[in-house]
């Protein structure tokens, strides 16, 4: 019975992780542009993404995102082009490589360490 409970818990965690990390591609170019725009800060605004802002620079960047999508560029290529011109500070999703890439790895490492810690703790408690 206990093994079954552990297996069920493991299955739930695995399914949740798969759903969480799976890249669900938007249906249309417009939705994709909207999604990319929400990950780029408006360089002339305070706390607004280019999707939310009506500043001229945000309007320009939205147009460029749409044009680049039409040209067949990937999300990362579009964000890289904007980072080249405006700097990494406008990109809300951290890069996947370099030191900043640690923000993607550390939470997973912390989760694994926490799970291992829990398993060890449960085993120790079960022996008492």
């Amino acid at each position, binding site marked *: 019975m206990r093994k079954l409970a552990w297996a069920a818990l493991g299955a739930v965690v695995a399914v949740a992780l798969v759903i969480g990390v799976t890249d669900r591609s938007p249906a249309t170019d417009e939705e994709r542009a909207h999604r990319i725009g929400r990950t780029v800060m408006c360089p*002339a605004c305070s706390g607004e993404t280019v999707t939310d802002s009506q500043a*001229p620079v945000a309007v*320009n960047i939205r147009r*460029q995102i749409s044009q680049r999508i039409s040209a067949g560029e990937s999300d990362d290529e579009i964000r890289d082009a*904007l980072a*080249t011109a*405006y*700097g990494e500070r406008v990109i809300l999703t951290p890069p996947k490589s370099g030191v900043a890439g640690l923000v993607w790895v550390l939470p997973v490492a912390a989760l694994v360490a926490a799970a291992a810690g829990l398993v060890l703790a449960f085993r120790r408690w079960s022996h008492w």
Partner: protein
Amino acid sequence: MNEAVASRARPRTALWVAIAIGVAIALLVTVLATRDPASSRLVRSPLVGRTAPDMDAPTINDAGRFSLSDQRGKWLLVNFFATWCVPCQQEHDDLVRFAAAHTGAGDAAVVSVVFSDETSDVRKFFARRGGDWPVVADENGTYATAWGVARVPESYLVAPSGLVVGKITGGVKFAFLQAQLARFEAGR
């Protein structure tokens, strides 16, 4: 006895604190009031040290087709502007002076790129205020986005090699541009 001393000391402490705060506020107001709000300044940009983004477009003021690659061998000031922007209006005379000062020697040139503005307004602006350098339209913000322009006026100084050496925010001044040109020519 001690209470009497404390009651005499308290008003004096409060007085000194009030004087210190007053002096700090006066200094802040003086600094803010005397600072030129539209002064040009060099700022950091990811483009500095890189090859200037390509620009090849027809001009809107009968200056023919403008190609950035044709400008190699001389300094180029790429000025992003709009006629509705007050600092852009204020810097225009300095741009006219800068362009005129270098036309003869041919060592430096200016190109203006329209930022979120109507072509007809830009034509009228140049007809009224002068300036015969190429003016490039940027309908979809392609150039502004490639150069990382956040708000106008913004200008970029491109070396004869084609590398971007400086980004200037705010309205430019003739003396400032000359000084920067001399500084970059001297390799400083």
